[in-house]
């Protein structure tokens, strides 16, 4: 199927052959294409890392900012122009490490953005240090005696933060992952999709096979609206569940809907000019 998010020319992709990033890239492109998202309304936002290069390979707008800082940028774009579709996509180090504080507080805001994380449990671009999600015991170029810190559980934390939508996927499963991403994009409010992704160059433990062997799909009977059950699922350790794990059952406004700026005027900010007379009036109150 032709995809408007593909490039006409062949492009040079800076990833290693066999890397899970390729399929995530394709899945995301397919998802936005199948959802008929207008290319000119899609802004891909990322930080720095291998995963963070994804926007470079999608024919849409992008803001490829600083390491760890994709989310504040994404929220600001969405809230300055709510007509845009904003996807913040980056790596586990970027989003949960350097960007950890933004991760927490962005979830609290419930901005209507999609947050996709390539979780390869390693720092790829900087050549193989532990990421916050690296398993205990993993030996890396830096953690030469093995990782000792408790791995960060993004799913459990997002549920604890009352995130609006929380899902996990695996880069190896094209159709299921596409389905999850589509749901996330369609969800109104903040939506997290953490994607297991093998890094063939630096993580020789959490391989394609390992992810495959250590994951399973939630079945159709699973009720994602129960926060405690979802949390319980999120804690599972032998096998990790995939699918939409949690959807907040409280109907809340999004960040953008809560903004006073849009109460009297629904236009994106760039279409507005300051009302100088009103300012003069206000100033007259200062006499």
């Amino acid at each position, binding site marked *: 199927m032709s995809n408007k998010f593909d490039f006409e020319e062949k492009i040079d992709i800076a990833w290693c052959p066999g890397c899970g990033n390729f399929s995530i890239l394709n899945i995301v492109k397919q998802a936005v294409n199948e959802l008929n998202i207008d*290319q*000119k*309304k899609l*802004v891909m*936002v990322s930080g*720095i890392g291998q995963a963070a*290069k994804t926007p*470079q390979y999608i*024919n*849409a*707008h*992008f*803001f*490829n*900012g*600083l390491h760890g*800082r994709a*989310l*504040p*940028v*994404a*929220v*600001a*774009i*969405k*809230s*300055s*122009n709510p*007509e*845009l579709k904003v996807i913040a996509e980056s790596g586990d180090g970027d989003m949960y490490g350097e960007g950890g*504080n*933004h991760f*927490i*507080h962005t979830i609290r*805001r419930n901005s209507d953005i999609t947050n996709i994380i390539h979780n390869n449990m390693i720092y790829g671009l900087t050549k193989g240090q532990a990421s916050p999600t690296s398993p205990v015991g993993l030996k890396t170029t830096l953690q030469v005696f093995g990782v000792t810190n408790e791995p960060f559980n993004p799913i459990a934390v997002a549920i604890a933060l009352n995130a609006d939508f929380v899902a996990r996927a695996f880069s190896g499963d094209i159709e299921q992952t596409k389905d999850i991403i589509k749901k996330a994009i369609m969800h109104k409010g903040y939506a997290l999709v953490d994607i297991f992704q093998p890094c063939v160059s630096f993580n020789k433990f959490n391989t394609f096979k390992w992810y495959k062997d250590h994951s399973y799909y939630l079945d159709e009977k699973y009720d994602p609206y129960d926060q405690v059950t979802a949390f319980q699922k999120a804690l599972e350790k032998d096998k990790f569940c995939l699918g939409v794990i949690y959807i907040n059952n409280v109907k809340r406004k999004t960040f953008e809907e809560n*903004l*006073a*700026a*849009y*109460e*009297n*005027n629904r236009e*994106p*900010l*760039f*279409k*507005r*000019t*300051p*009302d*100088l007379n*009103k*300012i*003069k009036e*206000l*100033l007259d109150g*200062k*006499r």
Partner: protein
Amino acid sequence: MMKKNVFSDEVSIVLCGEAGQGINTIELILVNILKKAGYNIFATKEYMSRIRGGSNSSIIRVSSKNVKAMVKRIDILIPLDEKAIDHLKDRITNKTLIIADREMIKKQNDYDIIDIPFSKIAKESGGILFSNVVASGVIFALFNADLKILNDYLAQKFGSKGSDIVDKNITSAGKGYEHGKKLYDEGMIKINIKNDSNIKDHYFLNGTDAVGYGALTGGCNFIASYPMSPSTGVLTFLSVHSKEMGIVVEQAEDEIAAINMGLGAWYAGARALASTSGGGFALMGEGLSLAGIIESPMVIHIAQRPGPATGLPTRTEQGDLELALYSGHGEFPRLILAPSNLEDTIGLTANAFAWADKFQIPVIILTDQYFIDTYYNIEKLNLDFKFQNYFIKTERDYKRYAFTEDGISPRGLPDYGEGLVLIDSDEHDQWGRITEDENVRNLMVEKRLKKMKLIEKDMEKPFFKGKKDYEILVIGWGSTFNVINESLEAINNDNIAFLHFSTVYPVHEIINSYLKKAKKTIIIENNATGQFAKFIKLKTGVEIEHKILKYSGIHFYVEDIVKEIKKITGGGK
């Protein structure tokens, strides 16, 4: 026996007490009613980093002239607690008249005091809480001003709280007024200050307001910031006006989020501001550098306070100029403005947004706590600002970083036109895609840096005052303008000229000719190392001969500067 006190053309009134004792209330009432009575008013404050207790003070200058600076001299002191007199002992002289409720300052008895039992009177008129209103009444009477002004003001201010409260206020004020009137009538205190009924229609702004209105005028419609004294007021100002003026306001989780949100907002077409102080700005360096490489407009307001680190959180300093100049890794253009006086700040701040947009650079506005908390009456404000957007509607194959003659590439927005807008923090090609090509890298570095030339052309000249053939040149920047100006007027030596900068980077070239003419140069800075002097040396090679520096956390008093300049120049002509 008490001496008679005559204050001609000018009186400086200082209120001092603990945080939470209501100094701010007296100050607010007094400045408003005195202005309504047609007096020129200047007021500012110094306070500790705590919510209750400690020793804070407000100074109100009432004058026949439109004074705009702080004096050390205290003509009338209203101490509200025991610690007050001790706190101000360096400023109290035998000419200082102390009006106090002796109950409140028990321990202090080596000073002559005019005892007025504020709290007793207040208790009789409605409750101890009204002591402040009593005090306001006393002072107001010393001006022989119309009690009705005070009553009207109280009625309006407390109207929403019900007539009982209004009545108690008015009664308390009246009682205080009576006591003051007695002092006046007995000739104990005589205040001869010209008033002018036009003054009541003057504007009355503080630094926060000025920056706030400037931001509104410049089209600011987005602010994400993290609270930090003394910069928080601007954030609050925009929040208060967010609904009517259509401003996206968010308290960021930290300063890093704040600046990155600002950049995201500009990308999507907003005009964003971040307001912070030195410590918060120190966290924004990487974000500033991002603005540099992606050539994004950004406006950052730094309300300076003394560092390093937490330093003196509620006090003042001009200590972050060098940080503003060099913050952010790598090399990229920027613009630094330091408002000199309240009347020009609205325009300068509005221009900050225009310049940020036009040159696609970060613009830093440097104020400080003193500036933020200072206000005086202003007759006229220039509000003729022409708003202009600089972004364009894109075409297909739009190149965000197209090479152009002057280094400025037309800036597009997502979903406005046919093009895609690509932004990358890595070095990029004309489209905005990552590149490591040496040649493109060189061109991009040059493109960014050459914008400085353009910016230099657009900048206004520094303020100059003096005769043509001066011998001594006094230089200042930012918030010291009014105090230097008044000091030089007081010194009244026409060999001295005054050069003041509100655009501190880039410094206008004309500085070279001013320096050349001077036989002696003096710089005045509210910091310990003479940061602007260093920058002048860098720009011109000229080492400023004399530095008048203050770094105690308190702004300059007129007396400080008069004394130091006289020391250098040998005292008048």
